[in-house]
Each structure stands twice: as C-alpha cells, then as structure tokens.
C-alpha cells in the first residue's frame, strides 16, 4: 500500500488508536486479534498462506483488466475468451469518452411515424427532433437526467455499432438495437399522447459537423433508415 506509507499516516494512525482507546478501555481478558506479534507461528503461517492466495487473485484480476482495457494486442487476442469470461458482467469497462478524439459531429436523431386510421388511410407525421427534446432538457440543468443525456445517445451508438452505413446488420445484437430505437420512438409518442394507431416508424440521423475553431462548419448531412413496422409489444 504505497499510498499509506508516509510518516504522516503513522502519526494519524497513532491518533486513531488513541481515539479508540480513549473511548473504551478494553476489558482485561480481551486480546487483540489484529496484533501480528501476538500470533503463534502457526497462525502466522496460515495468514501468510491466505495472503499469498489473495495476492495471486489480485495479480490475476489486474492482468485480465489490463488485457481487457489495453489496445488489442497479440496477448489480449490470445486470451480473448478467458478475458471475456472474467471481465463480464462486473468488470467490463471502456475509457473512450473523448478519446482518442472527442466527437466532431453533433448527431441529431429525428423520427416520424405512420398512422393508420379506422378507414384504412395512412398518414405520415412530420419529422420530430428527438435529440432536440433531450438537448432542451439538458440546457440550464446542472444535473441532467440519464433519460436525457444517455438514453437516445447510447441507443443510437448501439445501433450504429451493430449496423453498416447502408443499414445492414453486422452483429447478432442488431435486432435488439432496432427494437430499442423503435420502442424509444413509440414511447416518446406515447408521452405526448400521439401513439394511437401507429403502424410504422422511421428514423433519420442528421450529422452536423462541429467544425474547427473559427471555421464555418460544413452543411449537415442526413442518413435515413428504412420504415420499421411496429409490433404490439412496442406499446406496452
């Protein structure tokens, strides 16, 4: 524990001990199980054995965390499966926020829906700026909600990471990502009381480049996804 080795620590710990002693004089027959000098060799050996196991565990854990976090390399590739087994679900981590570079584009997710009326006519709503709603909630808020800051942002990232630019699926979680986005649109419409009769939703992403400092950012580009039919489950 290098962090605790300074002489100041020792002073403070002496103070702590003094504080403890001051509060309650220990009973006469009490012994201090934490005193390493009072331990018999047998206990010391057992304690050392357990310590060795713990140290091995620490080394093992840190090794896998390293393999998981480090850039892909021949060692991490070799032990990919074992690393996955160890790291999920609790130790999974990635530190890519603003690294290697911050996003240079603001992505605005828009959505529109198709309604089918009782007589069978289908109408299409105008585009709604879902990200715009999030941003409006974040503005002026010292502690923005996850529902505004992470929900749609990470749902789009999830979709983007599981699909090609032409919308074809690239991972086996792609269907989850589509279902998630579809349900987000339906839930937003439900919140506004405009969900009745929705039969299909469509999303598009508007990419607005931030632009270099003091430069005029280039025009936003748009990527439209296809129409997705809604399912009864989406409305629950």
């Amino acid at each position, binding site marked *: 524990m290098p*962090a605790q080795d300074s002489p100041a620590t020792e002073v403070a710990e002496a103070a702590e001990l003094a504080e403890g002693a001051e509060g309650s004089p220990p009973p006469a027959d009490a012994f201090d*199980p934490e005193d*390493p000098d009072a331990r018999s060799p047998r206990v010391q050996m057992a*304690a050392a054995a357990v310590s060795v196991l713990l140290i091995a565990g620490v080394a093992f854990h840190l090794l896998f965390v390293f393999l998981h976090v480090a850039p892909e390399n021949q060692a991490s590739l070799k032990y990919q499966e074992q690393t996955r087994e160890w790291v999920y679900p609790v130790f999974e981590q990635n530190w890519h926020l603003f690294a290697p570079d911050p996003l240079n584009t603001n992505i605005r997710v828009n959505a529109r829906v198709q309604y089918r009326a009782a007589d069978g006519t289908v109408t299409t709503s105008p585009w709604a700026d879902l990200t715009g709603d999030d941003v409006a909630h974040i503005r002026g808020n010292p502690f923005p909600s996850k*529902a505004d800051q*992470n929900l749609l942002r990470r749902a789009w990232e*999830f979709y983007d990471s599981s699909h090609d630019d032409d919308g074809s699926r690239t991972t086996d979680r792609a269907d989850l990502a589509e279902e998630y986005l579809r349900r987000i649109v339906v839930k937003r419409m439900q919140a506004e009381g405009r969900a009745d009769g929705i039969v299909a939703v469509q999303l598009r992403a508007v990419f607005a480049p931030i632009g270099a400092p003091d430069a005029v950012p280039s025009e936003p580009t748009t990527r439209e996804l296809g129409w997705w039919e809604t399912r009864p489950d989406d409305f629950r």
Partner: protein
Amino acid sequence: MTSVDSTPESTPESAPDFAPRPAPMPEVPRQVARTGSKPADAPARPPLDIRIAEAVVAFFARLSGRPRGTYQAALLRIGFGAVFLASLVREFLNRREIWGDESPWSNDMARRLLSGIDGFSVLLVRDDRWWFELMYVLAIAVTALFVLGWHTRAMSVLFCLMVVSFNSRSLLMTDGGDTVLTLMSFYLMFTACGRVWSLDARRLRRTGGSRSPGPGQEGGVFVALVAAVAVGLVLPWWLSLLGAALVLTGMWRLPRELEQLRAAVVAAAHHCALFVIAAQVCVVYAAAGMLKVQGETWQNGTALHYALNIEYFQPWPWLSDLADGGPVAATALAYLTVFSQVGFVFLVFAKRVKYVVIAIMVAMHMGIAVLLGLPAFSASMALGDLIFLPTAFLLYARSLGGRLVRSRARGGGGKPGTGAAAAEGAGRP
C-alpha cells in the same frame, strides 16, 4: 553504516534496500556505539538471506496485521454511496423510464442482452411493478445505511448488489461514472470501510464492545444473514448458503487462533482491495491518456473545442463558449490533460508531486462536472483520485470541514455543529 565494512560478511551496497524498513533505524546508533567501545565483537549484520526472510515475514505481518488506510476506505464508502444515492434521488421521477416498466429497454430485452454476458439484476427477478418500486426503495435505504456505516460489511454487499443490478438492468443508460461506481462498489466489499466515520465505529466507542464474533453480535449476524439471502436472489444458491454459514459462525466466540486468523484475512483482503482500487484508478487514467496521445485533436489542441460543442454535454452554452477561448489556452489545457493522465501512475506515488497531479485531476473533473453537465461521473472520478491522499490530510480536512460547519451553524442559529454535520463535512474535504 561504516561498522559493517569491518566484518567479513559485509554485503553489497544495494543490500540495505531489502531490509525491513523499521528495523535498521534503531539499530544504527547502537551498532556505532558498540563498535566505538568494543570493535572486536561488533555484531555482524545478519546475512542477506536472513534479512530477506525477515523482510518477507515483516511484509506478511504488515499485510495481515492492522488494517491501514481505513480513512481512505471510509472516504470512498461515503463518497460513492453519496453519488449513487444522489442519482437514485435525482432520477426518482424518471425511475420507471430508466429502469422500470416505462423503459423502452424492456425487461425482456435486458434479459436477452444479459444472458450473453452472464449478467444479473435483482430488478429482473420479477416483472411486477410492486417489485420494482420495492427494490427502488430498498436501494435508497441500503445506500443511505452504507453511507452512514451501519453494519457496514453487510451493507457493502447489498450496496454492490444494488449498483450492479441497476446498471445491468439498463446497461445502455450507463456512462463512465456508472462503470467506476460498479467497479468500486465491488472492490469496497473487501475493504474495512466501516472502521471509522461510521455508525459502527460510534457503536463500538459507546458500548465498548468488540468487533470479534461472539455473544453480543446477534444484531450484526442477523443483518448479514439478510444480505447473504439477498445475494441468493441473483447468484447461485450455494453462494448464499456459504455466506449464511460463514455469517452464522459470528454467533459464537471463535477459538483464539481462529479469531486471529479471521482478523488476518480481513486485514489482508482490505489491503489487497485498496491496492486494486488504486491500480484501477491508474488503469483508467493510463488507458484514457494513452488513447488520447494517439488522438489528432489532442495533438493539435482542438480537442477541447470539440468536447465543449457536443450538444449532449452542453448545459450552459455561453459557459462552454467562454471556456472555448483562444488557441493558446485550449492547446495548453489539452496537453495538460494528456500529460497528467499519462503521467498519473508515475506521479501519484511521489511524496510531494502527488498533490499537484491530484489537484489537477480534481480541478479537471470539477470543470467537467459543470461545463459538460456530468456531475455524477466527475464525482466518481475525483473520489478515485482522493484515495491517494494521506490519512493526516484527510483528518485535517475533516477537522477543517467540521470547524467550518460549526462556525456557520453558530453564525446562522447559534447552535454548535452536531456530530452528524461534522461527519458530513468529512465526506467532501
């Protein structure tokens, strides 16, 4: 150490590095004095192998002796508990949209994602609304008790269970702050984080009881049993059974040697966990720093400009504009960020320089908290930095905080600060 030179078993100059640190200090004057009077039988320093063996014994005695760094552990307990508590309270009105029945990420979708990574969540045990609400209330209660340090070890298990459960239920709602919180809540289970600044410590002081198992610990055993059973909701039942069996041994006084061994294991686990926490913080910074080194915008100094102009992290656009001021300042800040992240692991163990790098990191995270609207993430990261502060500093900050609270209370209503208020000040030095 001139006396050593006269003996035949003199060792290479590098040898003293292996010696246990406390030992040589008192011996030096004694040796010099003896060689002065009777040079003939100057006591030879023990040979190298003996000294290495002694150092190893001393190392294990230290590792499994008294828990050190208990204030740092308590700071993390209070800090991370407070961050999770603040999130739960802040999101109370949005709780159903984020973790509950109104979430677009349905329970079934969560199960599908978690089944691929062996994830679990108590929120997914049942689909009923009442179960969700009950778990939410319990999470708040558990976290509050964890912050206060009430039967801390049992609470730390429940706290970890809740943190992992909420984050796993809505994995796609999490950010870096939640990741840090999850990791730390797990590591904290193995620390003795309730030794100080806790209700447990207060109870021990007041009743004069002991921490050892035996009669008088029935309350603690009961709470721990509840925690052990709760674990069985999401983890294999035999783990629960094992935990319950272990907890039940607390009903009886253990034989002396077994009790010593128990204390040794507790201390060794505590020290190992603190080491892992410190290493984890270094891993975070090293990873983030090394990634940034490769980033073009961090090299050309425009990274902050982009970071400050992401709409999702822009609660105060005018403030972001203000901070995005000028090529020189932006480049300097970008390089400072990268250098301090990459250098963190090397600087934070230095005796004096560590204050500089910790100050830079804490300032950086305070900036992120306000400018980018990420207070929970920033608080978690800053707490990770603070464990590198020495105990004396924490105690000083605590007394300073306590004095501030007291003087303000006196100025406001003429009432001296209560113990609770002082303890609260201790959480945020």
